[in-house]
């Protein structure tokens, strides 16, 4: 029977210096890693940088990976931390309101789905990093509470609390589009 090589096998091979196995690992997860970075940062350029840095860091961290969490959880943790550092670094001198222009149409009812989607992404990017990460991981990436707790290395009740507040913020921001 043919069995697709699983992620753990690839990591084990990469740990012995098999760069081919590492390349396959990157190929399998590049979409996920880039996607979460884009959702957290909002800028394709920054997302590309963050994804690249994350994979280099994954490679550096290979010897330390013991298989206590799944490979995808581990990758999420690395890219998420990368994005959090970037958010921290740009805090203060690059206000979001300038990066992401408010729609010029004003607060009338949105008739176009496109506007609503743009408004939602903007609302997500306006959340504090502490709230944004759980919201993106839960609502956009579809991760479980347990996995998010593992990714962020916080408790499940802490995840629920942050998510609860993040959802409310999003609803408040989106009310003009209702």
């Amino acid at each position: 029977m043919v069995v697709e090589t699983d992620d753990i096998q690839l990591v084990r091979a990469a740990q012995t210096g098999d760069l081919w196995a590492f390349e396959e690992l990157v190929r399998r997860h590049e979409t996920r890693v880039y996607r979460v970075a884009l959702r957290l940062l909002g800028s394709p350029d920054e997302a590309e940088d963050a994804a690249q840095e994350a994979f280099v860091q994954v490679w550096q961290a290979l010897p330390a990976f013991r298989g206590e969490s799944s490979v995808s959880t581990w990758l999420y943790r690395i890219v998420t931390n990368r994005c959090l550092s970037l958010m921290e670094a740009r805090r203060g001198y690059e206000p979001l309101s300038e990066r992401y222009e408010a729609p010029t149409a004003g607060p009338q009812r949105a008739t176009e789905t496109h506007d609503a989607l743009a408004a939602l992404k903007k609302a997500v990017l306006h959340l504090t990093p502490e709230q944004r990460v759980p919201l993106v991981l839960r609502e956009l990436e579809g991760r479980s509470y347990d996995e998010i707790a593992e990714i962020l290395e916080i408790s499940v009740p802490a995840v629920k609390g942050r998510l609860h507040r993040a959802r409310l913020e999003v609803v408040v921001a989106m009310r003009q589009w209702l």
Partner: protein
Amino acid sequence: MTGREDLSRLPCGTNIANLVDQIAEGVASADPAHQADCPDCQATLRELEHVWGTVRTVAREEIVPPRRLIESVFRRIRQELRALGQLVPLEAVIPRLVRHALLGGPRGATRIADSVVARIVAKAARDTPGVHALSVRELAAPKAGAPGRLAPRGVAVDISGHSVSVEVRLVVAYGTSIPALAAEVRRRVIRRVEVLTGLETTDVQVAVDDVFGDPDSLPHRIVLRRPPGRP
């Protein structure tokens, strides 16, 4: 932000945050009897459904990483290895242009290059009665990661893990039922790829680009080929 205070409780006393979690998690109401009769709750739930519909749409959006991402990752790794004083052959850290199917096994993995699969597909298609040839026309949009260099023309394969998606472009013999032929090509390609590689073919896109031997097209071609200066 304005209106935050409006968002704590509805006039009926329901905590809006609980309704938000109810919609976001898709779980049952904590107080179904009240919600069913309360116009405030009903109206708010409708609004929240609307917002969360947008959230779900954004979640489904397809996001494709830039193609140079893998290359830039490996360039960085190569620099790191050099900085560590390790000699690394260039080809060891440049992602291969050829993609492989990867079959895991207890005593080692087997890799099959996509060009190998493409050749098997080409042969299976050509052997189907009614197929005159593979089309030499370039594929309009090469599949992601398709090598091109080694693959026969008229065939593209896209390998992912141990499944493969195939596209073939054909020139068919005039008089053959094209739908029946396409079905037969599909059947043969799937069967031969499975027997020879163990890979599962998820889909076979068949394009018919030309027919061969159409008698009606002959006079047209003769006119075109008539040497100049003769009636």
